[in-house]
């Protein structure tokens, strides 16, 4: 048991697991470059469901994904053991150190625990998150929230770039107003998610698949627009008006707050740590 604990807490193992994760992510980025639309479905599908659907049929292009998760899981254990061992060692020496020095020494361990929180948060998001898209058209009813509430799309207003600019005819912002049966309004616009009954609601634009049957798809360099991550064409309302569809994205992401809080804490603590270390080095140089 002690041997296993030591092996798991080895820094050499941490290094090679990070290199392994780098290689897996880099490989994944190359595959995603070949088939953007295939991998983009994973963004809005729980990981286990997506893997179950593709592991046999598409193993040749997704093999790196289980490998990545193995590396990240092992890295999680490694971080936990390493950081815990270090923390215990430091706590034993606590009385011999000045308060500030102790906290500076403790900081890398705390940062590692926070990184663990981020990995866990992402894992929760990937497995328990849900994303649902609903097309938005004026007058139509949409159902949102955990206990679905019927809401009517009251209005959709487009705000375009100024006519005198080179971006004229392109959408700068959109305002959508949803109303419930009591007439209460729920305004939505891009980049401003709204929380509704535990669900985050936000706007997104997608190519209109139904219209695409009648018309040839928009292309860049002979490739369908869906093959690209940049959707500038979709927001250019003239003249391809029929090819885009405004959608409501309803998100339940139980890992989100873990990720964001840990990210913020890591940033503050890491900056403070490196500034403290740099200041201590500079002080040591002067004496």
């Amino acid at each position: 048991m002690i041997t296993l604990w030591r092996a798991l807490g080895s820094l050499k193992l941490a290094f090679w697991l990070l290199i392994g994760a780098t290689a897996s992510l880099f490989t994944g980025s190359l595959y995603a470059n070949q088939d953007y639309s295939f991998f983009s479905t994973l963004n809005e599908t729980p990981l286990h469901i997506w893997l179950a659907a593709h592991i046999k049929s598409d193993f040749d292009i997704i093999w790196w994904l289980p490998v990545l998760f193995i590396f990240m899981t092992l890295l999680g254990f490694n971080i936990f053991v390493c950081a815990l061992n270090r923390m215990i060692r430091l706590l034993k020496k606590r009385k011999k150190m000045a308060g500030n020095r102790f906290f500076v020494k403790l900081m890398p361990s705390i940062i590692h625990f926070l990184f663990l929180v981020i990995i866990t948060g992402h894992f929760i998001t990937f497995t328990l998150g849900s994303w649902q898209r609903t097309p938005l058209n004026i007058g139509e009813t949409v159902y949102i929230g955990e206990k679905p509430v019927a809401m009517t799309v009251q209005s959709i207003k487009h705000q375009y770039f100024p006519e005198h600019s080179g971006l004229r005819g392109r959408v700068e912002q959109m305002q959508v107003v949803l109303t419930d049966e009591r007439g209460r309004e729920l305004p939505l616009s891009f980049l401003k998610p709204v929380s509704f009954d535990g669900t985050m609601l936000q706007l997104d634009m997608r190519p209109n698949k139904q219209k695409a049957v009648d018309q040839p798809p928009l292309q860049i360099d002979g490739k369908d627009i869906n093959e690209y991550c940049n959707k500038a064409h979709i927001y250019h309302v003239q003249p391809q008006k029929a090819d885009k569809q405004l959608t409501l994205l309803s998100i339940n992401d139980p890992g989100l707050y873990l990720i964001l809080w840990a990210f913020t804490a890591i940033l503050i603590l890491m900056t403070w740590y490196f500034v403290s270390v740099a200041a201590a080095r500079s002080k040591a140089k002067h004496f």
Partner: protein
Amino acid sequence: MITTGRHEILYIGILLFAVSMVFYFCRARKTAFYILISGLLVYTLYLLGRGWVGGVFLINPIVEAPFLLPWCIGMIALVKGILNREGDWGILLIGTVMASVFAMFYAKGIIPPTPNKLTVWVPLFFVPEVMGHALFFCGALYAVASGFGKNKDMDFHNLIIWGFVFYSISQVTGAVWCYLGWGNTFRWSTRHMASAAIWTLYAAYIHLRFLPGFTRRGKAWFALAGGLIVLYIGFSGYLHELRFPRIGG
């Protein structure tokens, strides 16, 4: 703005970087330093001018990576020059000139921004990301210039550590922007995975000092390999974006 669409301003800035480099290697360090400052001022004016390329002010073209990168490397050289005028800051001028020559031939127009790219999170993501890349490149350059760790005065390690701090900031701001714009903090796309790969690579680097087998020479080779990987990932992305339709050049 007066510098909007005036590409000659960019060329003057690049010329000043090149002249600064020549003076530095001719051992006229003081002159080189002041020419670098002039070059950065001119280049900054060009970058600001890019904000109006679309006929309406946008921050996006200012922080577009191929154009921001030379400025970031130049700023790192400047800061190192301020800290130690007689030091080896001029080595970084090689990086500044190389990156700015790439910018010189790059498409000058802007990719029309979609509504989810019109946010303050754009500079909050791109500035630390490009600064992180710049510091990784500078670290690699210093690692090579130090004869792979032989010259102990050339500290590539600190550059990489600060690169890691900036890059980590960009991972956080990028995650927030991604969530607000697309509904995920991480997306399974080339961009995000390559970005995460760079982060884990340099996370591995900062653990090297705990591995007794890794000497300063080993670290220098790692710094060079890391710089080359960032170069491949970054520049393949810039070249890919050349295929998108642009406005204003």
